[in-house]
């Protein structure tokens, strides 16, 4: 199976471990992620301001690229939670607001007219609804019996309602995936709390406090690793542990990886594709057994 894929900026730089591990894992499942040609910035954050149509041009242009390249299959898969949320919300807005749609189509007069019919899918939804977790389970090669995973969703996979891939108050899609992979999961109450997001640029202390609470909660419930799907959550929870350590002497580190890295490890994919070298805290539980 081939499906169009929108990577976004961070997956091409600091989150190469996310992209490489996802592409390799999907290959095991018989899926080729076909990178969208001529993709541009997704816009990064969806603008809630109704008259702010300029900030919706970037995501809509990407969806027009999907239409141009789709050959009838109008679906696009994203990995980054931020890209997913922005593309999905922009598409829903475009579809539901005819006046703004006409205005934007007129503005983008060198593009084909778009009516909002592309389906934006996050990889987790694709795995659950298109591949099926039972089929994912058939590819398990390594039983990672030492792993106790706390799934961290953050906000962008769950809010607002139209973009939510699961129940926003008690999501389980990541846990369901890990259970199908034969991995023990740890349910922890901070899994849909805010990581501090972009405040990591100019309010590091705020992010340090969030990270301290989130990591401590997961650790106290027995987790030895955290899995996420958002490069910004991953950065805040992983890299900012250095700042947490500087502030709290009793703090104990916990590795934070992408869910695709765990999936790849279970599928016995070569370490060159899983890129654990890009994780700041060494994911020791995943590196055992002569890996």
């Amino acid at each position, binding site marked *: 199976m081939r499906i169009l894929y929108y990577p976004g900026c*961070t997956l091409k730089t600091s989150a190469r471990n996310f992209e490489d591990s996802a592409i390799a894992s999907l290959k095991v499942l018989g899926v080729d992620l076909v990178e969208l040609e001529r993709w541009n910035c997704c816009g990064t954050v969806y603008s*809630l*301001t109704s008259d702010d149509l300029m900030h919706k041009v970037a995501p809509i242009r990407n969806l027009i690229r999907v239409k141009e390249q789709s050959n009838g299959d109008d679906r696009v898969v994203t990995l980054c939670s931020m890209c997913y949320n922005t593309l999905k919300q922009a598409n829903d807005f475009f579809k539901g607001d005819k006046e703004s749609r006409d205005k934007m189509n007129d503005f983008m007069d060198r593009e084909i007219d778009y009516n909002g019919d592309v389906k934006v899918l996050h990889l987790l939804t694709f795995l659950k609804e298109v591949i099926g977790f039972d089929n994912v389970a058939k590819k398990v090669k390594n039983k990672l019996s030492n792993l106790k995973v706390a799934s961290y969703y953050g906000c962008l996979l769950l809010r607002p309602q139209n973009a939510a891939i699961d129940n926003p108050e008690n999501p389980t899609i990541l846990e369901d995936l890990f259970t199908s992979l034969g991995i023990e999961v740890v349910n922890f109450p901070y899994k849909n709390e805010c990581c501090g*997001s*972009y405040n*990591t640029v100019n309010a590091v202390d705020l992010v340090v406090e969030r990270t301290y609470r989130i990591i401590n909660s997961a650790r106290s419930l027995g987790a030895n690793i955290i899995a996420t799907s958002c490069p*910004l959550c991953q950065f805040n929870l992983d890299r900012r542990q250095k700042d947490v350590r500087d502030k709290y002497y009793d703090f104990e580190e916990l590795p934070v990886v992408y869910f695709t890295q765990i999936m790849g490890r279970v599928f016995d994919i070569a370490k060159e594709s899983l890129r654990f070298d890009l994780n700041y805290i060494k994911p020791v539980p995943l590196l055992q057994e002569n890996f």
Partner: protein
Amino acid sequence: MCTVQCPRGIDLSKIMEALRQVDLRGNIDYTKIKEIKEEEIFILPQIALVANFRKQTA
């Protein structure tokens, strides 16, 4: 979530965003780009920088 639970159906997040935009359109930068440390620029993911500039600068 506040928007879902508001008995009067007010979209509070949209109102907060509108207030933010009104403020930012006064040409105010809450993030001082020149004050970001060089070593931070090298490690911060692009989505952090772009999202921050979108939300906190004019």
